[in-house]
């Protein structure tokens, strides 16, 4: 298998993954690790500049190490996608939350509008004073 040796090394009861931190952030690695707490003992180390090594020591000695390693890779991808989507949708979620809040309490919308107008007037005043 081509994957073996390049990013995945295995031994008796353990598998070692080497991944690029530019692709998978530390948050992604911790989250994937958290999912695997019941299946393996996890040790994370830093190798070269952007290389992270993840050691998985299987709790079940019968479990094939390739499977454990590759399923961990899938979990990394899963969380990388989750965090990317979260970032991409952050603005849309914020707008939806604001709308939901303003629908529930319309006075909040008036307050927010008043505050925004006051801030704009303040900014204009400052600019006029500078000129």
């Amino acid at each position: 298998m081509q994957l073996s040796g390049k990013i995945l090394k295995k031994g008796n009861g353990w598998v070692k993954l080497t991944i690029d931190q530019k692709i998978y952030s530390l948050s992604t690695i911790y989250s994937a690790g958290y999912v695997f707490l019941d299946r393996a003992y996890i040790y994370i180390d830093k190798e070269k500049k952007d290389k992270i090594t993840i050691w998985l020591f299987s709790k079940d000695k019968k479990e094939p190490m390739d499977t454990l390693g590759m399923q961990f890779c899938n979990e990394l991808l899963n969380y990388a996608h989750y965090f990317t989507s979260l970032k991409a949708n952050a603005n849309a979620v914020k707008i939806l939350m604001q709308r939901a809040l303003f629908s529930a309490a319309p006075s909040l919308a008036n307050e927010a509008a008043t505050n925004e107008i006051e801030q704009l007037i303040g900014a204009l005043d400052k600019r006029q004073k500078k000129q």
Partner: protein
Amino acid sequence: MAIHPFLTKSKNKVFLRLHKKIYDKNLIACAKKEEPDMVRNVLSQKEYYLVELDTNDKADYLDFLNYLIYLKRAG
């Protein structure tokens, strides 16, 4: 106890070897606070924290590693 990648020996003592950029200062401090009976000593050596645990059992070291991941995610 056999030496594993996460362990190191110094002055006849065994330490967990934790990279500072992976297992940060706050995490180690939190673990020490939560498990004062388990964490005997923490040393700083170049890019690593060396954590001495009150055990000679490999299983306890492995459990502690998972506990750190749990704390990191929970915190």
